[in-house]
């Protein structure tokens, strides 16, 4: 068997002295889509942020291998350049830095790391406009400050645009669906589906089953109390939607899938 894209082994992490992740085990292979579901506060965003390298999360034990390398030792920007992309639950605003400047700087940082030539202004514009069309974003967004004054849905779309531009191997989407109306959800899902390929994997963190109607996962995991307490196929998500998390936390999910 070939090497897994991402291997999380017995990962423990804390935030401000509070244990949040209490032994996560998860293997993601190229081409797979994993959904991670779970009640609010169960540690889904913590897991996503730890993978992206956010500083205020402290890993206390366990390891994470990305393409066989120790991901936890890599700088934040190197993780991104190596192909780990986190779409944020709450994308932040950066007034004064235009979307275009930001995207071009990010893209060229990533391309340089990957041994590709930096794109000039013309090629960059051609590429970004093509991706924006896919996400039905108006080109005027390029001249605005990053997420500055964007609606919730526009911010999420902007994050997916960044993902499409940076061409990651592992996309981690943290509740990209929440706060989206149904049309935006469909556009975002189509954007993600267009990026699905045998070399790329996704981890979809979501609270609702709805997203999984559009982006059909290969595996569904339930995170609760900082641990994955159940895993299964997409049927698990349907059961969760019908019976709630209480059912799985009490042990009912063992019968389904895994």
């Amino acid at each position, binding site marked *: 068997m070939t090497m897994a894209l991402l291997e999380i082994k017995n990962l423990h992490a804390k935030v401000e002295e509070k244990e949040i992740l209490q032994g996560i085990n998860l293997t993601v292979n190229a081409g797979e889509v994993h959904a991670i579901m779970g009640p609010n506060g169960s540690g889904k965003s913590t897991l996503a942020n730890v993978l*992206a*390298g*956010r*500083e205020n999360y402290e890993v206390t034990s366990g390891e994470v291998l990305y393409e066989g390398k120790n991901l936890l030792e890599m*700088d*934040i*920007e190197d*993780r*991104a*350049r190596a192909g780990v992309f*986190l779409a*944020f639950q709450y*994308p*932040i605003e*950066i*007034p*004064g*830095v*235009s979307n*275009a*400047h*930001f995207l*071009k*700087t*990010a*893209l060229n*940082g*990533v391309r340089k*790391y990957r041994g590709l030539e930096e794109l000039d202004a013309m090629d960059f514009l051609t590429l970004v406009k093509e991706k924006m069309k896919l996400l039905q974003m108006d080109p005027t967004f390029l001249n605005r*400050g*990053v997420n500055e004054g964007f609606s919730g849905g526009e911010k999420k779309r902007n994050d997916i645009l*960044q993902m499409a531009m*940076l061409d990651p191997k592992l996309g981690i989407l943290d509740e990209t669906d929440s706060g989206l109306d149904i049309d935006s959800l469909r556009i975002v899902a189509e954007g993600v589906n267009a990026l699905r390929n045998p070399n790329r994997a996704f981890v979809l963190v979501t609270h609702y089953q709805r997203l999984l109607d559009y982006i059909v996962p290969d595996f569904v995991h339930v995170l609760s109390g900082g641990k994955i307490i159940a895993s299964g196929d997409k049927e698990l998500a349907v059961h969760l939607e019908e019976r709630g998390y209480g059912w799985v936390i009490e042990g009912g999910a063992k019968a389904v899938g895994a």
Partner: protein
Amino acid sequence: MTTSYQQAFEKDLSRDVPGFLRRLRNEGMERFAKLGFPNRRMEEWKYTGVDPIAQGDFHLGGDKEVSRFTLEEMHRMAFCVLPGPRLVFLNGHFHPALSDLSGLPAGVRLSNLGQALQEDSLRVETYLAKQVGFQDRAFAALNTAFLQNGAYLYLPRGAVLTQPVQLLFVSHGNGAAVVSHPRVLVVAESQSQATLIETYVGEGAYFTNAVTEIVAGEGAVIEHVKLQGESDSAFHIASIGVHQERDSLYTSHSISLGGALTRNDLGTTLDAEGASAIFNGLYMVTGRQHVDNHTSIDHAKPHCTSAELYKGILDGHSQGVFNGRILVRPDAQKTSSQQTNKNLILSEDALINTKPLLEIYANDVKCNHGATIGRLDESQVFYLRARGIDAKLARSLLTYAFASEVVGQIRQDLLRERLQQLIFARLMPGKEAA
């Protein structure tokens, strides 16, 4: 201390100086001798010590050196030379060969101030030394004592200049520490419009002591860019006084990037209904640089508005001072005034003292003010890094974004872009701004 200035003054004044100017200069010297250099026991100078200036040994540069300063050097040292009229000065002396006074509409006067004192003496006497008083301001008094060079711009009623007037003050002592006392007088009659770009640059150690006076007549629109890009070992003191008539609009963009020690005093009097002032400022210091901006807006009459935004970026062991005075006189009902000072601290050792000074004596007014001191937002830094932008570049981009709120308001495209590049290059040597 003041005695060396006294000696230089006597030597300098022995030349042929007309009566009005001779009296004014004598008065300036007398006041300066009486006041002496300011010290930190004075409220206005509490956070800015001028000992390095007081103890420095500065010489008036000779006017013979002027011809050695070439066009190439001018282009090398100026931030940006735009098409249009300009006056160039070296060590305070007018440089006619590098200046361009052509293409001005009829009735507009633009010349060296010394020349204007002869050619337009009545008007100059009417307005000179009235907008920046020197009775209790030592540096303005000192400037007045040595007053002979500088720029004079007169805009007759309704004159509109489409190109900016550029004033370039270069200091270059060739080893010796020089002092210059540039003086600028702008008289804008009613309904006239002009943009003035005052630039200060130089090399080595020197002392610039500038005074700029502007009179904006009824409905006049004056845009005033002041760029301070002095050398890192220079001392820069500037006093700017503006007088505004009915419905006039004065906009100041004051950008301070260089200098070991900088002090800007910028003040306007909104002296008739409907006048507005916009004060837009940026200071960016590092190392051991010290920058002090004292601004003052005097709402003397009703229905005037003022808006002020000053931003500071402080790195290294630098120190900054912002003191923003807003005076609303009892008569000035329906005043609208807004003041913001935001500071970005990039190092552990940088320091800022910020103080709004609101004196409001009218009751029907809208006045807001606020000051912030902060560091870069780490969640923004994380966001950029998570997209593959390295940490240093991420910080530079965010700092640049902070500055661009001010610089972005400069309307001359070339100048604005040049400044943006310059700021970006300072933050991120070797990278280009987008």
